[in-house]
């Protein structure tokens, strides 16, 4: 895409996608609260700038792996909103035909190799995608989105090392929202600066304000350039915060109201709006119109998805394996 401040179109894209993520998550919260969605939901309200900034440095062919808190990644990479809601509602037209749910949404056309219900599950997979890109000389990068909690999984360690020794075109993008479910980074890490871990693998570790879409984009683009030049992976630690609990049954016993209040004032969306208005790239009216556009898009998607046909159990057995062609 390009730098969010480089033109009104780019600024529009950044703001529109952050609003799309925000409104999507709010809609999911509402629908879930009404009992229309099965299971549980992991919302990323407050974290919109990170996936938006990262994906603006990527092309459609570049690949991502995502997490259980992955709606934002999927939307930022270009997923169809109707098919996403349809999946959460268990409909046939959902991305997984109702068989995967919130944590397993993938979109081949936008290079999305799938959200993952296992913490750290997507990191070695992204390394493998980067390996394939290098072997096939495709010139694409693979970005693995994960949280601070995943950095203590063996999968992170093994994948980071493989990416480093083979100089894979990969970006390890950590959304550090300070909590892996209820364990804070202070308690889960013996180091203060998570980016220092890059040194352990011999790769650059970069800190960035995860709530500043411009800063995220700049760090992301630098990492993409490095990867495409064949210089190997980068570890990006984007500091951000989630407003809502880990999942819908989270009582927030592990953090304080005050902490949540402070972070709400660092909302990435008003921050970016203030900046584009100040720099004369967009007007307040334009920004309001962009917000409405996002709201209308979500409403349309929900209304369409709700009317769609529900997934049926017939055909489940045939869905396990891909058919062997004769």
């Amino acid at each position, binding site marked *: 895409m390009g730098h969010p401040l480089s033109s009104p179109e780019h600024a529009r894209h950044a703001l529109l996608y952050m609003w799309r993520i925000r*409104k999507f998550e*709010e*809609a999911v*919260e*509402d*629908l*879930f*609260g*009404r*009992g*229309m969605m*099965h*299971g*549980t939901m992991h919302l990323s309200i407050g974290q919109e700038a990170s996936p938006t900034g990262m994906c603006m440095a990527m092309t459609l062919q570049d690949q991502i792996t995502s997490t259980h808190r992955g709606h934002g990644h999927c939307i930022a990479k270009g997923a169809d909103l109707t098919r996403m809601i349809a999946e959460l509602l268990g409909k046939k037209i959902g991305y997984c035909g109702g068989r995967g749910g919130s944590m397993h949404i993938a979109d081949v056309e936008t290079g999305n190799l799938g959200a993952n219900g296992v913490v750290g599950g997507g990191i070695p997979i992204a390394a493998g995608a980067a390996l394939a890109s290098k072997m096939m000389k495709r010139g694409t990068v693979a970005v693995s989105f994960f949280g601070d909690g995943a950095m203590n999984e063996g999968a992170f360690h093994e994948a980071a090392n493989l990416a480093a020794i083979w100089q894979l075109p990969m970006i390890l993008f950590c959304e550090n929202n300070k909590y892996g479910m209820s364990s804070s980074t202070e308690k889960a890490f013996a180091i203060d600066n998570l980016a220092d871990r890059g040194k352990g693998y011999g790769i650059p570790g970069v800190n960035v304000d995860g709530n500043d879409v411009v800063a995220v984009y700049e760090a992301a683009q630098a990492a993409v350039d490095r990867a495409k030049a064949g210089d190997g992976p980068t570890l990006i630690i984007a500091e951000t915060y989630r*407003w809502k609990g880990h999942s*819908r*049954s989270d*009582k927030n016993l592990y953090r304080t109201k005050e902490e*949540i*209040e402070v972070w*709400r004032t660092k909302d990435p969306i008003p921050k970016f709006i203030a900046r584009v208005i100040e720099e004369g790239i967009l007007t307040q009216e334009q920004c309001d119109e962009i917000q409405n556009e996002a*709201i209308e898009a*979500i*409403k349309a998607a*929900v209304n369409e998805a*709700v009317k769609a046909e529900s997934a049926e159990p017939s055909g489940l057995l045939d869905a396990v394996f891909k058919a062997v062609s004769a």
Partner: protein
Amino acid sequence: MSFKYPVVMPKMSMTMETGELINFHVAVGDQVKSGDVLFEVMTDKIDMEVEAPADGVIESLVANPGDVVEIGKPVLIMLTETEVMAFDFGAEDEPVAAVEVITAPAPAITTPVAPVAPVAPVILNETVKAVPKARVEAANRGIDLRTVRATGPDRTITMADVNGAQLDPAIAKRQAANKALIAKGIEMTRGIAQASFTRSVNANFDHATFMAAWAKVLRNRPDLAAHEHIGVALIIESKYGSALPVFRDPDQLKIADLAALVASTTDAAKNGKVPVAMLSGATTTVFDLTTYSMSSATPFLFPNQVTSVTIGYESATTKIVSLTIDLNFCDFYDGALLLDALVASL
């Protein structure tokens, strides 16, 4: 612009269906900011605070502290400046299916049938252990496993035990009687001049269809029967030997009713019980050899019958129909026409 937004009882865990409103943290007219706590709720597992989704003012309180509210139903109404993502599909929601109490179907009660003739065979085992095939074989041959000596490990009855077992004398007697009856009947007709014809047909008929078709053909030939009705005897094998229940005027029954009658009579015959009314009045006999995977058998006529038909196995999709006629009543050409008519109507 102002939006009116009902804050509902939210679903807060995978299994939650209702929540109890504990108390309000706000009153009507209060200004609130996005994230402020509006009220507390409790479910069986957790108690949670419900936050304002946007900045606004409390317009009215709908539920009362202590109320148990269904998820999705309003607890209070607030007015907001910004539009809140809210989707109330109301009646379009699929109602939560009531949990159906499924009463288990009454178990089929099978009381063991006491042996009819309390004769000779000594009960050797009160409880029986037998290999699966031995059970099948014993049932087919009318052997009571309790009378069989078990020589297998752990006092289990083996195939060898069943094969060498004494048949229940009562059953053996009936079997002998049946054999004698049939043998005698065929001896009586051996001297009659007979001819047989054979045709191949598509194998898509059952006993009922076949008997009805044959009866219909015979309906046009009153000269071929001594009775006024048409009686089709169907040979059915049971543990007592061959049974020959007679189906009267099968072409005049509704095919579904005939099929049901054939099924129930077949079951009864296999257990040695054919209704007395069906034991006489045969004017022709049908023998289905396909149950033994045979294609053909020696043609024969039963006493006082001038036709008989066998159905034999030819292939997965075709069968062989063979007609035997008494040449005193039917000449060759006639016989061929009869078979033709039967095959055409199948």
